[in-house]
C-alpha cells in the first residue's frame, strides 16, 4: 500500500470514528435528559397520588391527618421514593423512614426539579410541590438512570469498535478506488522513457483533478519530447559540423603526404597532424556516446549468451597484447554463465580495462582476468600489479577526462581519459556496476564489473 493510500485510509477511519463518537455523545446527552425528565414526571405523578390521599372534596385535611397519610403512603412507595415535608418557614417537619438521617436540601434557585448528591441517599432527582401551606419534596434515586447510561456506554463502545474496524476496510477500499486513476498515470509515466517519449497518458473527458493532473503531465512530456529532440539534433549537428571539416583536413593532409613531394620533416609533421585528427575524431565519438547514454539514446544489442564465449574471444586478444608487452596474462573463469549483454560493447569494456592495466603494469608483471558468478551477478575482475592508485582517487577514475594513472606514470600518449567513463556508462546501460579498488596486500589495482544475471530479458533494449 502506498503512503498516500494509507494516509487516506487513516484519515477516513479517524473522520468516521470521530463522527460516530460525537453522535453517540449527543445520543447519551439526549438519553440522560429524557430519563431525568421521566423521573420528574414520575415524581409529579407520585405527588398527585399523595394529593389524592390528603384532600377531600378539594379541601385539605387537618395537618395531623395529612402527616399520617403521607407516612402511610411513604411506606408503600419506600423502595422508589423519598419524601420530605417542610412547613411554611422551611423547617423539615417530616421525613420518610427510608431516608434515615439524610435531609433533602431546600429547593435551590427556585427550580421545581433538581439533582442533588447526598452521602447517604446517593444522587437523587428531587421535585418540590406545594401541599397546602407546606412544601412536599419528593426524590427518586438516579441509580436506574446511571445503570441505563452505563449500558448505553458499553453498547456505544462496542459499536465504535465495530465501526472502526469496518471503516479501516472501507477506507482502504475507498482510497484504492480514489487512487486508481493516479496509479494508472503512474504506470504510464513509468513506461515513458527516452525511447518512447511520444507515448501519453490516456485522459478521459471528465474535468476532475486527476484528469487535470494527467493533462498537465502530458504537457510536460510534450516539452520533454521537444527538448530531447533538440538534444538529438544538437548531437547530430555537432557531430556533422565537427566531422565534415575534419574529413576535409584529413583528406587534404593525406593527399599532401602522398603526392606533395614533402621533405622528411614535413612528412613527419603531416603524419602527426593526421594522428591528431584521428584522436580528435575518437574524442568526439566518445563524447557523443557519453552524451547519448546519459539521455538513454544508446540502443543495446542485447542477447542472452554464454559469458565464456566473450571471455574466450577476449582471452586471445589479451594474451596477444600482454605477450607483446612482455607481461604475463592469467585467465580464471568459472563454469559457464548465461547472461544478457551486448557482446561488442562489453568486449570494448574488457579491452579497455586490459589496455589500462597494460599501461600500469611494469615489464614481467602480471595481469589477471577473472570471470565468475557471485550470487545473482556475473562478476569480471581485471587485476594488475602496477602501483595502484591513491586511495582518495580510486572513485574518480570513472569520471570523464580524469587521468589519474597517466598523471602518475607520466604517460601522456594514451587517450583523453574517457575510456573508463565510457565503461561505466556501458555498465549502467546493462544495469550493472563498475568499481575499482587497490589490491590488498598490494601493489596493484583491481577493476571489477558486475552484471545481473537473468534480470534483463533477451531483446530488451536498454533503458
Amino acid at each position: 500500500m502506498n503512503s498516500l493510500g494509507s494516509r487516506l485510509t487513516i484519515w477516513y477511519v479517524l473522520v468516521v470514528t470521530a463522527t460516530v463518537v460525537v453522535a453517540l455523545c449527543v445520543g447519551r446527552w439526549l438519553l440522560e435528559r429524557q430519563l431525568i425528565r421521566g423521573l420528574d414526571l414520575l415524581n409529579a405523578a407520585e405527588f398527585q397520588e399523595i394529593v389524592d390521599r390528603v384532600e377531600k372534596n378539594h379541601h385539605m385535611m387537618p395537618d395531623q391527618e395529612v402527616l399520617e397519610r403521607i407516612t402511610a403512603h411513604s411506606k408503600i412507595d419506600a423502595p422508589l421514593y423519598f419524601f420530605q415535608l417542610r412547613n411554611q418557614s422551611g423547617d423539615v417537619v417530616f421525613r420518610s423512614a427510608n431516608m434515615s438521617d439524610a435531609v433533602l436540601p431546600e429547593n435551590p434557585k427556585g427550580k421545581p426539579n433538581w439533582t442533588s448528591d447526598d452521602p447517604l441517599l446517593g444522587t437523587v432527582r428531587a421535585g418540590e410541590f406545594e401541599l397546602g401551606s407546606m412544601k412536599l419534596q419528593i426524590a427518586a434515586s438516579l441509580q436506574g438512570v446511571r445503570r441505563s447510561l452505563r449500558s448505553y456506554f458499553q453498547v456505544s463502545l462496542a459499536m465504535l469498535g465495530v465501526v472502526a474496524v469496518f471503516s479501516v476496510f472501507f477506507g482502504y477500499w475507498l482510497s484504492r478506488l480514489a487512487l486508481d486513476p493516479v496509479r494508472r498515470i503512474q504506470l504510464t509515466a513509468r513506461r515513458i522513457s527516452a525511447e518512447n517519449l511520444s507515448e501519453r497518458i490516456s485522459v478521459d473527458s471528465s474535468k476532475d483533478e486527476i484528469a487535470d493532473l494527467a493533462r498537465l503531465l502530458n504537457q510536460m512530456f510534450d516539452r520533454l519530447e521537444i527538448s530531447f529532440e533538440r538534444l538529438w539534433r544538437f548531437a547530430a549537428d555537432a557531430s556533422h559540423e565537427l566531422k565534415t571539416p575534419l574529413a576535409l583536413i584529413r583528406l587534404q593532409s593525406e593527399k599532401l603526404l602522398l603526392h606533395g613531394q614533402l621533405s622528411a620533416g614535413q612528412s613527419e609533421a603531416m603524419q602527426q597532424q593526421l594522428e591528431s585528427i584521428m584522436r580528435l575524431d575518437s574524442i568526439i565519438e566518445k563524447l557523443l556516446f557519453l552524451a547519448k547514454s546519459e539521455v538513454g539514446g544508446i540502443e543495446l544489442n542485447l542477447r542472452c549468451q554464454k559469458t565464456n564465449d566473450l571471455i574466450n574471444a577476449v582471452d586471445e586478444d589479451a594474451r596477444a597484447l600482454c605477450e607483446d608487452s612482455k607481461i604475463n596474462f592469467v585467465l580464471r573463469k568459472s563454469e559457464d554463465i548465461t547472461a544478457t549483454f551486448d557482446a561488442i560493447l562489453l568486449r570494448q569494456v574488457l579491452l579497455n580495462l586490459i589496455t589500462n592495466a597494460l599501461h600500469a603494469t611494469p615489464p614481467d608483471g602480471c595481469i589477471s582476468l577473472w570471470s565468475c558468478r557471485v550470487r545473482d551477478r556475473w562478476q569480471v575482475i581485471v587485476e594488475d600489479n602496477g602501483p595502484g592508485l591513491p586511495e582518495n582517487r580510486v572513485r574518480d577514475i570513472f569520471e570523464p577526462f580524469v587521468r589519474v594513472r597517466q598523471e602518475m606514470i607520466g604517460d601522456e600518449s594514451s587517450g583523453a581519459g574517457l575510456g573508463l567513463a565510457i565503461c561505466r556508462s556501458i555498465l549502467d546501460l546493462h544495469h550493472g556496476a563498475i568499481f575499482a579498488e587497490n589490491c590488498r596486500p598490494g601493489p596493484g589495482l583491481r577493476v571489477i564489473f558486475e552484471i545481473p544475471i537473468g534480470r534483463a530479458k533477451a531483446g530488451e533494449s536498454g533503458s
Partner: protein
Amino acid sequence: MRILIVEDERKVGQFIERSLSEVAYSGKWVSSCATARDALAESTFDAIILDLGLPDGDGLDLLREWRAAGFNEPVLILSARDALQDRVRGLNVGADDYLAKPFSFEELLARLRSLLRRQGGKKTTEFEHRGIKLDLLARTVECDGNPIDLTAREFALLELFMQNQGRVLTRTMIAEKIWDSYSDLDTNLLDVYMRRLRKKLESSPDKQLFKTLRGVGYQMV
C-alpha cells in the same frame, strides 16, 4: 565507372570528385536531394556515395526511394553521425557499406572497389601467395611447404589479406571484419597481430609480405 557523389559540403564533395578522377573513375558531385534525384534521372551510375545530412532532406529517405524504384547499384553511405546506430539503419534501408567521417580517401577507394567488385565475385576456398598457402576448409596454413600454427584471429586476419591480395586494407575495414567493431580499435591490437603474423610468415628479412601504410592500414604485397 561512373560514381555519383551526394555530399552537401562543397569542398569535401569536390575533393572526392577530383580524387576519383585521378584514379580513373568518373565522379559527379551533387549537393542536395533534389539535384541527386535529377542526376540519377538523367544518367546511369555504377555506384553512389551518399552523405546522410543533406540540406533538403535525409540521405536515408533518398536511398529508400531509390531502392524502392529498383536502383540496384552499390551505395556507400558517408556520414558524420554516430557510427553504430546510423550504420545499422543505413544497412537496413539498403546501403551496401558505411563509412564514418572523417575518413581517409584510401579507405573510401578501398571500399568502393570492394563494392564494385562484389557485383561479380567468385568464391574460392584455397589461396596462394608468394609461397603461402591457406586452405579455408582444412583451416591450414603453409609457408614454403612448412605448416604454420596460427591462432583463430591470426588465421582470420591472414584470410582477409589473402582474399584482398595487393589491395589496401584500412584499419577500420580490418577491425570491422575481424572484431565486428564499427571503428578502429582503441588499442594497438591490430599492430600486435600484424607483428605476430610477420614473425610467423616472413621467414627471411628480405621477404616482406605486409606493407604498413601509417595511419591508414596494411597491404599484402
